[in-house]
């Protein structure tokens, strides 16, 4: 009982708090891109853009790795290795995001800047999206740290889904003379297909909502970045950064509305994901 109440409660409360902003900017809020506390003129587009792009890149990077990990985790044999990897992933999940943040800020971002962003833009700079990096903190480094952070969710859920694939399926395939790869690629993964997709979307949900680590490395610039190597902003991080300073009535309301948008998106994504995961896991049992 508590869960649904809470869920709805959160939405309602935030909605009321955001009401002033909503009534003032209406739908335009989502599509305009200027963010000016002085003129009290607010548009969410840059943040939405930042959020979506960072998450997208993160997913793109994390999914293959996540599935690979899941396969290793569900492989019989190599019990020792399996245990090690399993614990490793669990630890990866346990580390607080703020720790990822500080690490990304002082280690990851500089590394990426010097060894990835600069060379890449040097060679492919003519492509707008890859044009010259200005600062170490960038949308790209935020995406990478996000990828690391959602990896556990991804591989853990994928593992559960793949585990739920009946043992007999794998055995039958092997008994037909299929190789390990053929078995996993043609039988096991297809059987887990929608579940793995669900895992992906679930991870997406996490990525969208992730705040602190991103805030620390994305560079916090309220505009739509010309290149993935430029600073940007996400819904979550702008709230984190500005809410405490926000004064007056509209400014906080606007921030809360950002929160509302964020949470609504996250919820929808989650619902979709969960339904998918649940279908496979329960279906196959």
């Amino acid at each position: 009982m508590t869960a649904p109440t809470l869920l709805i409660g959160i939405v309602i409360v935030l909605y009321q708090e955001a009401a002033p902003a909503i009534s003032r900017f209406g739908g335009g809020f989502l599509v305009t891109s200027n963010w000016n506390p002085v003129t009290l003129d607010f548009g969410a587009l840059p943040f939405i853009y930042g959020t979506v792009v960072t998450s997208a890149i993160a997913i793109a990077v994390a999914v293959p790795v996540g599935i690979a990990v899941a396969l290793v985790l569900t492989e019989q044999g190599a019990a020792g290795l399996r245990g090690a990897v399993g614990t490793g992933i669990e630890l990866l999940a346990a580390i607080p995001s703020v720790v990822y943040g500080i690490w990304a800020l002082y280690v990851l971002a500089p590394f990426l800047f010097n060894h990835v962003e600069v060379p890449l833009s040097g060679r492919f700079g003519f492509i707008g999206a890859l044009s010259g990096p200005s600062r170490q903190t960038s949308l790209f480094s935020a995406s990478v740290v996000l990828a690391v952070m959602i990896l556990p969710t991804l591989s853990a859920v994928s593992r559960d889904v793949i585990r739920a694939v009946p043992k007999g399926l794998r055995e039958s395939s092997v008994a037909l003379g299929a190789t390990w790869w053929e078995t996993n690629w043609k039988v096991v993964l297809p059987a887990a297909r929608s579940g793995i997709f669900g895992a992906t979307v679930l991870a997406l949900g996490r990525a969208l909502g992730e705040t602190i680590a991103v805030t620390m490395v994305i560079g916090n610039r309220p505009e739509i970045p010309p290149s993935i190597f430029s600073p940007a902003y996400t819904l979550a991080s702008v709230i984190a950064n500005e809410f405490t300073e926000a004064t007056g009535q509209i400014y906080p309301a606007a921030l809360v509305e950002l929160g509302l948008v964020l949470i609504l998106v996250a919820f929808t994504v989650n619902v979709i994901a969960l339904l998918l995961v649940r279908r496979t896991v329960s279906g196959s049992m």
Partner: protein
Amino acid sequence: MIRARNHWRGYKNTIALSAVYGLTGLALVPLALVLGYTIVKGLPAAIHPEFYLNVERPVGIPGAGVAHAIAGSGIMVGIASLLAIPVGVVSGVHLVDYASGRWASWVRLAADVLVGAPSIAVGLFAYVLFVAPQHHFSGLSGALALAVLMLPVVIRTTEGAVALIPASLRESGLALGLPRWRVALQLVLPAAAPGIITGALLAMARAAGETAPILFTGFGNRSWNLDPTQPMSALPLIVFHDALTPYPALQQQAWGAALVLVALVLVINLSSRWVLRRQIRMAGQL
């Protein structure tokens, strides 16, 4: 012909295998790096005893510490647990044992969605609910925010643990003519206890590591304070704020706090995993 093809298949197989293991290895690199750097950069600050005894000091004055943050984290997580765990456990058990069919699956969905709720939004929620009316930040409101984050985790892990108990156990209990609540309380709960404890611990670990929800609820406090009605500091806050300052001393302090935080969280985690393993083994025997 067949022979040739089979050779080719074996070859493909080897490639695929190595690729998969390679990627897995790659996945573990960040872990090593994060832990490594946290330890290396954190130790200088964290080895000093006063780091755990003193509170923050103005930049330049040596002997600064994070005692107040540790205390703050402890208090807020503690209160949060007191709120979230009982409620969570009860609704978790209820979910399996009573709530039936469609309704249950909705509750479950809601809980899952809450698990994935952006923590920053939860922070906002708590702010609006408790901070705004009182017009000042407080450890209590931080605790409430954390409680909201913990609740779904507790519910789901509890439910998971209870669900691990085979339905036949419950049925056998009922078939003996025992009332439902006794079966739930004296048969199912005990059997599921380890799993539930695990859930609680995991939830606490997660809460202890959260920053966003307490940014503008607990807010932070540079001095020693045990009064939950006042603003409170917490380890994550220290890391977050100090890391972004230009002062090396504070940055070092941030790393130190990070190390403590990581150590804390990992200890809770590993121990709880261990409990969980036992639970699963037990369930296997049922």
